[in-house]
């Protein structure tokens, strides 16, 4: 259908389009924008603002834990910090970070001009600042901020002061934002792929986001219902989770973790997609076992629904239940192992180079695997009785979420920032950032395995003197990691605003080994890309099946 003379006409117009149809000027551009690139940028700026706020909270926690005894804050405020740190980092940092990447990259990767529902996309973003303003404002309310942990277990959570209804309402707002984003991504991926891009030719990042969005849509009503029942228990006299009225507080834990465990995969599946995109580029080989990667992602998504109770082995479940959840949890190691082996096999005999995105991707593979192994240890019911609610658990999930999810977001930004801005980042600063991050993150969290195994409890601002050395190391690591991130922030802002004389000289295909439709458009990517569905040449197909891999 695409005739040659029409194509010529399109090119001629394309030039004019960009001159006349750029973004609006001023603040209203950002408030009213429905452009996926603008909203992706907004999501990423918001995400890193939240990382900064959540990071400050973590520094307060670590400063208090530098020495045993009470140092700087009251125990109630310490508990507020642990609660808010988690909520801010999960719902404000990691999730919007990945939504920002999806906004920027999914349309460009599947060859469409924007997301399916651009206005909904705008609303979805602008709910977030209000939701978080409300959540953070609870820290200044009578009775203090929520301090019962991000899991909001009753009856402890029901003792929260005036902050409680505001917390619940803000969780609802964040849920609405997540759902609108997920629906938008799903409909876009299913309906707006360029001709020739079948499901099994989609880039892995798009696949992982499709499954992530499915999980989000499936579990968000559970969270909404659970927190609403908490609200009615506190203010409307219901007894869903109030033992005095015949309710069951443990039931809340089941309901919460039925949402919470898929949520863990919501936080990590897009990271798998990012790493599956970056490693083939710098190994200069197609991804090994594309199909198995897709099926492994789907398998992880499915298994995430049937493992929730491994978070609550100590509540007194029947033995059969404990065995089921133990084995089901261990089963997740199989598809996750498939992924790790595929990444390693992709690098095997590749022409590898180690630019900053690759360093972060490699850091992800190595350190996420450590988090995976400690997860396997926690999956074993008998030993989990020892590990439960200790710093071993804190070390485990931080290894999964920081060198896992956060490293992958950083890797993705290094990888795509030349495409977004047309300016190359400073490679030396990027490498320095990686090495400092990798060293300090291990300094922060590795000692926590030891203190956890020795019995140091989480969510307590004081500890036995015997844990002092490891806690000092951990605190030094946390401050070092936080400060190291400013190298990244300045490096990226320099790309955005052209600081230090950086010019927009990045070519369309920034990385020699990069494949995919996003690399066929100029850098920086035009405000509107793919107004006509592009052709999908075989050379840009990232989903290379095993039989074709030898010819690629």
């Amino acid at each position, binding site marked *: 259908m695409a005739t040659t003379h029409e194509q010529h006409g399109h090119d001629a117009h394309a030039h004019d389009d960009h001159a006349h*149809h750029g973004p609006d000027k001023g603040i209203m551009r950002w408030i009213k924008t429905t452009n996926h690139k603008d909203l992706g940028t907004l999501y990423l700026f918001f995400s890193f603002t939240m990382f900064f706020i959540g990071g400050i909270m973590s520094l307060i926690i670590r400063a208090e834990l530098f020495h045993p005894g009470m140092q700087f804050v009251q125990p109630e405020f310490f508990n507020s910090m642990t609660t808010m740190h988690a909520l801010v980092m999960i719902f404000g940092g990691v999730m919007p970070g990945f939504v920002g990447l999806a906004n920027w990259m999914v349309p460009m990767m599947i060859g469409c001009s924007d997301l399916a529902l651009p206005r909904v996309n705008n609303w979805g973003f602008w709910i977030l600042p209000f939701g978080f303003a409300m959540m953070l404002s609870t820290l200044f309310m009578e009775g203090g901020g929520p301090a019962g942990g991000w899991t909001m277990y009753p009856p402890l959570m029901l003792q929260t002061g005036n902050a409680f209804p505001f917390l619940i309402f803000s969780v609802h707002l964040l849920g609405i934002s997540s759902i609108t984003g997920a629906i938008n991504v799903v*409909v876009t991926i299913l309906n707006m792929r360029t001709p020739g*891009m079948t499901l099994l030719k989609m880039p892995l990042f798009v696949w992982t986001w499709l499954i992530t969005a499915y999980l989000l849509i*499936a579990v968000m*009503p559970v969270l909404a219902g659970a927190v609403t029942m908490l609200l009615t228990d506190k203010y409307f006299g219901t007894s869903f989770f109030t033992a005095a009225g015949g309710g069951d507080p443990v039931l809340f834990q089941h309901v919460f973790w039925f949402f919470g465990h898929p949520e863990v995969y919501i936080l990590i599946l897009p990271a798998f997609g990012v790493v599956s995109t970056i490693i083939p580029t710098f190994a200069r080989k197609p991804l090994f076992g594309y199909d198995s990667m897709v099926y492994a992602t789907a398998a992880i998504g499915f298994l995430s629904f049937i493992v929730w109770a491994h978070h609550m082995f100590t509540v007194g479940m029947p033995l059969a239940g404990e065995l089921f959840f133990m084995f089901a949890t261990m089963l997740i190691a199989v598809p996750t192992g498939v992924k790790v082996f595929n990444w390693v096999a992709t690098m095997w005999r590749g022409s590898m180079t180690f630019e900053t995105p690759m360093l972060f991707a490699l850091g992800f593979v190595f350190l996420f695997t450590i988090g995976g192994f400690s997860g396997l240890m926690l999956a074993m019911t008998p030993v989990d009785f020892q590990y439960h609610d200790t710093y071993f658990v804190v070390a485990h999930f931080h290894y999964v979420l920081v060198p896992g999810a956060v490293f992958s977001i950083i890797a993705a930004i290094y990888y795509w920032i030349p495409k977004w801005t047309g300016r190359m980042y400073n490679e030396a600063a990027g490498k320095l950032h990686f090495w400092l991050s990798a060293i300090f993150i291990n300094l922060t969290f590795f000692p926590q395995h030891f203190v956890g195994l020795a019995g140091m409890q989480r969510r307590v601002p004081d500890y036995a003197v015997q844990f002092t050395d490891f806690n000092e190391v951990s605190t030094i690591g946390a401050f070092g990691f936080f400060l190291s991130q400013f190298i990244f922030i300045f490096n990226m802002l320099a790309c955005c605003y052209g600081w230090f004389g950086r010019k927009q000289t990045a070519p369309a295909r920034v990385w020699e080994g990069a494949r995919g439709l996003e690399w066929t458009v100029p850098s920086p990517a035009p405000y509107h890309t793919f*107004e006509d569905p592009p052709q999908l040449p075989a050379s840009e197909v990232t989903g290379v099946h095993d039989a074709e891999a030898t010819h690629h």
Partner: protein
Amino acid sequence: MFRDTQLMIGPNASLTVGQAWLFFGLMAATGLGVAGLMAARGLWPILPFAGLELAALGTALYVSVRRNGYREVIRMSGETVHVEFGMLGRGASATVSLSRWWTRAVLEPGAHRNAPSRLLLRCAGQRIEIGRCLTEEEREQLHGRLQELLSPVRPKTPGARGGEPAQELPFGER
């Protein structure tokens, strides 16, 4: 001299109605299954949230799939311009015939600052809006193409000559 041309305008679409139903069914089975099980355990407040969310998903899919089937066919043969509007599989719901000599393509700005532009075929007092499913850039491109095709002078596009067989513009049509 004029050349015979057919332009078919429609949105790009990779999702069929059947696939949309399949996806929605899978999602509803998961969402309502979970909410139903919870409701059976007494946790009924999850059910309305699941229902609301599925309604939002259903609406998004319905809107997208409905957009997919929309077509506008502009057939220019001899001295006549035929414009047909309709949905795929349902035939033309409206047809207009205009004199090619007197028809002009006009691109008007939207009613207010953020409204989309309007591409109109104007002929002796008749105004027919086309290309509503297109983006701003696509509309501008189509406008230029229509001006070319409606002008009896030599076409500007290299290689395009009068009397060629009907050709289609690749505006999302596959």
